[in-house]
């Protein structure tokens, strides 16, 4: 679904270092590779801070994918038809897959998956704050697909050209799969907004609740985004938070008109000379409150993830025991 690279910095000494990392950040060979728009591959020399920054961002992105299964998993049992249920199951399965592509990409940087999961479970690494909002009605499945996955696509498409090869390649797969997510969400809202007045109201309510948090998915404004400049220099990030947010707004406003739903911003207006839709001010205090752990669902999401991991322990143990037994049998036979 989506990952963003902002939030509190990690405490020192928690990220893996490669065997031959460069101390400085301005190594000529490395920067020449970046300047040539070539890709950095796992066993290349790279600045330690580049490696650490990528591990943090990819891990946070992976965590977002698997935590992102929860708000939608909440509605699988209550989807209004078999078709919608099959679609939602496929979508949630995709989110699991996206998490796995990304964990695998992070591992190429020399970090263990179990270490990343530990950090998620202990709250030392973050996931996207958007998943700390509850999914109250079926229309939220529509709003998440249309707005949250829509914002994710805008954010993720440039990462297909990220300077780190494995991350870029994982993102190509993810972006291909993500477009179905957005369309199915739009279709849910379109169906509701053409339905009974109660269904229309439900669709409008969901859009009212998800619009502002979706805009915040792009992170703080550019003048308050300390890591951005370095990430741009290193080809990890290709566009600024505000540029991507504007792209999303311009893309989404006409879609809201096609849906016959309003966006909850009285100041939203078309700047005709610039050709852009301008929103009213975004209250970023809310974003930082939610990142800081005070969103509506922070505790529930983490508790559920930890419980799922603990309840799966016997499956992992059984599979490992089975593999070990057969490895022994094979040795005996040989």
């Amino acid at each position, binding site marked *: 679904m989506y990952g963003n690279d902002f939030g509190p910095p990690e405490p020192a000494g928690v990220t893996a270092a490669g065997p031959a990392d460069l101390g400085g950040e301005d190594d000529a060979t490395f920067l020449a590779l970046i300047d040539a728009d070539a890709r950095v591959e796992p066993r290349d*020399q790279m600045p330690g801070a580049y490696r650490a920054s990528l591990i943090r961002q990819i891990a946070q992105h992976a965590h977002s994918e698997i935590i992102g299964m929860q708000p939608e998993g909440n509605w699988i049992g209550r989807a209004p038809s078999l078709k919608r249920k099959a679609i939602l199951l496929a979508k949630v399965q995709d989110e699991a897959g996206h998490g796995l592509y990304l964990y695998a990409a992070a591992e190429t940087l020399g970090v263990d*998956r179990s270490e990343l999961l530990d950090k998620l479970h202990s709250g030392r690494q973050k996931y996207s704050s958007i998943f700390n909002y509850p999914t109250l009605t079926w229309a939220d499945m529509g709003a998440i697909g249309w707005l949250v996955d829509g914002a994710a696509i805008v954010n993720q498409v440039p990462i297909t050209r990220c300077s780190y090869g494995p991350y870029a390649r994982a993102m190509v797969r993810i972006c291909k799969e993500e477009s179905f997510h957005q369309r199915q969400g739009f279709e849910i809202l379109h169906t509701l907004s053409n339905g009974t007045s109660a269904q229309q109201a439900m669709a409008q309510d969901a859009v009212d609740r998800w619009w502002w948090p979706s805009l915040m998915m792009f992170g703080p404004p550019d003048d308050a985004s300390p890591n951005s400049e370095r990430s741009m220099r290193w080809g990890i990030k290709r566009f600024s938070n505000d540029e991507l947010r504007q792209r999303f707004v311009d893309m989404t406003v006409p879609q809201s008109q096609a849906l016959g739903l309003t966006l909850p911003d009285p100041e939203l207006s078309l700047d005709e000379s610039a050709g852009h839709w301008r929103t009213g001010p975004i209250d970023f205090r809310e974003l930082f409150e939610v990142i800081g752990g005070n969103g509506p669902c922070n505790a529930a999401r983490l508790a559920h993830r930890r419980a799922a991991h603990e309840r799966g322990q016997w499956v992992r143990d059984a*599979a*490992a025991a089975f593999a*070990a037994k057969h490895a022994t049998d094979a040795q005996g036979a040989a």
Partner: protein
Amino acid sequence: MSAAAATAGEWPLWEVFVRSRRGLSHAHVGSLHAPDAEMALRNARDLYTRRQEGVSIWVVPAAAITASSPDEKDAFFDPAADKVYRHPTFYAVPDGVEHL
């Protein structure tokens, strides 16, 4: 890829190769963890071919792969660098000669 590794906290890493359709080679698509080869194949099917992306899958223990070192990149591939005569474009062809 020992049994001991499989019983430790982390399952071994497998590299996954998928033949997208008949007539093409298997190509590397990514990696995954699994306790044994059979589970690695099943996980690879679920992870990398949810949309009919493949007709055949190979899984290879990542530890079994021997790779050239990036450090010796230049020296290792140097022998090919000064042999331009291995390419057809090296040779001059008189005007008007076709099918050559």
